[in-house]
């Protein structure tokens, strides 16, 4: 019987695991794991016996994949991390995404430079997915400030959505054999062509399993001459996209999140586009309960002023309890929890290292 909430917090100085009862009254913290090096992606895999996976970006010795079978009391390196074929000429720089595949040992990893890898043995061996990693467009992708990263993997049976910065949204409808750019309506403020076929700086893509054809995207907005391109919705499995940014204070941001029980309810964290921090130093999460038609500011409990942090693309998540909590981590090391779907916020940890990613599960 599920009775605990577990959080994985990937930071600049390693991975932390937090645990609380279902009341979420007090979280205990353990870590840092992974030799204190940066963790950009984590996965709490509840498909069979619960396992935690995390990437470990070791500046000296390269990428590692960490795995735990005891809810993060201890971690071991898997036998190998993703690696490009020897003659490929590319070298793995980071792992930006870890996602579950179809069976209990099937894992997918989105990496930098933008490529996709798959493991069928729980992360011990990895194969490059050529359909996207060697895509004919890949030579024309280019890195954003965070690197050339494949950071979002959204799976729905044989349909796979990928988010690439800076490559755009790519869609496979044959289980990952082939991928096509699917960016109609996705704008780019840094390209002479406002709506290129590919090359957009997608920040995050999200969907709800009850509405598989509807997707939400936080794109790189914040362009005065091209307003409204930053927050988007698709109703046709990502083939075309429309703006849902009207009513937000900024269409720039990194994460976008869907409520675990309602595909119409979504969350974004608007940021001031030049500094990538909270507008006017007043942090707020914005929620729409209408699939992006209207937005409401949620700031009860958050700082009223002097809050100049960034919430990165994978640093907002939700648990799946009946009245779910929303969690986000900041580049200033705070972990915030929003009770009742974000109606009221509480700082759970206030002095962690800068937070790259947050994952939650009820186990």
């Amino acid at each position: 019987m599920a009775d605990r909430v577990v959080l994985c917090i990937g930071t600049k100085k390693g991975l932390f695991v937090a645990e609380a009862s279902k009341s979420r009254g007090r979280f205990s913290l353990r870590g840092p794991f992974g030799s204190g090096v940066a963790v950009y992606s984590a996965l709490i895999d509840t498909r069979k016996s619960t396992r935690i996976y995390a990437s470990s970006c070791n500046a000296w010795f390269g990428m590692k994949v960490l795995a735990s079978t005891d809810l993060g009391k201890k971690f071991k390196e898997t036998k190998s991390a993703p690696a490009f074929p020897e003659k490929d000429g590319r070298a793995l720089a980071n792992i930006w995404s870890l996602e579950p595949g179809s069976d209990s040992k099937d894992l997918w990893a989105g990496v930098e430079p933008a490529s996709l890898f798959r493991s069928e043995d729980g992360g011990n061996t990895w194969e490059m997915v050529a359909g996207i990693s060697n895509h004919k467009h890949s030579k024309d992708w280019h890195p954003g400030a965070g690197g050339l990263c494949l950071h979002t993997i959204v799976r729905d049976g044989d349909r796979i959505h990928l988010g690439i910065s800076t490559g755009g949204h790519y869609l496979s409808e044959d289980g990952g054999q082939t991928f096509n750019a699917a960016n109609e309506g996705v704008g780019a403020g840094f390209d002479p062509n406002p709506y290129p076929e590919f090359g957009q700086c997608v920040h995050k893509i999200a969907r709800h399993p009850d509405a598989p054809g509807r997707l939400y995207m936080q794109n790189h907005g914040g362009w005065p001459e091209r307003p409204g391109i930053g927050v988007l919705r698709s109703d046709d499995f990502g083939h075309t996209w429309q703006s849902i940014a009207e009513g937000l204070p900024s269409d720039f941001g990194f994460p976008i999140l869907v409520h675990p029980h309602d595909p119409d309810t979504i969350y974004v964290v608007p940021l001031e586009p030049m500094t990538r921090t909270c507008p006017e130093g007043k942090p707020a999460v914005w929620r729409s309960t209408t699939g992006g038609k209207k937005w409401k500011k949620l700031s009860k409990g958050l700082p009223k002023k002097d809050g100049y942090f960034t919430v990165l693309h994978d640093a907002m998540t939700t648990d799946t309890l009946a009245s779910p909590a929303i969690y986000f981590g900041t580049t200033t090391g705070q972990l915030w929890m929003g009770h009742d779907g974000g109606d009221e916020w509480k700082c759970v940890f206030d002095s962690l290292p800068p937070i790259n990613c947050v994952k939650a599960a009820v186990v």
Partner: protein
Amino acid sequence: MSISVQVPYVLRHECGGKSELEVSAATVQQTLVALKDRQPKLYRNICDETGTVRRHINLFVNESLIHRKDGLETKLEPGDLLFIMTAVSGG
């Protein structure tokens, strides 16, 4: 021709706990090739998929950084020591 590779503490678990490996090689490059064959896990912590020595790893022959000599083509003499060192970096 035998030279000795000195393994730093933090990498010894990648080669069965050994602090020193004996390798038959005439250059630093040949040493890395030998490590790739005999100690692949250790090698992958030193070099990436392209065979490039990782950015924050320094290789010394005796007391000289190989970048101040002939890089990977630096010649080795019998009894030389090749040190694998982690560079000062981070923050």
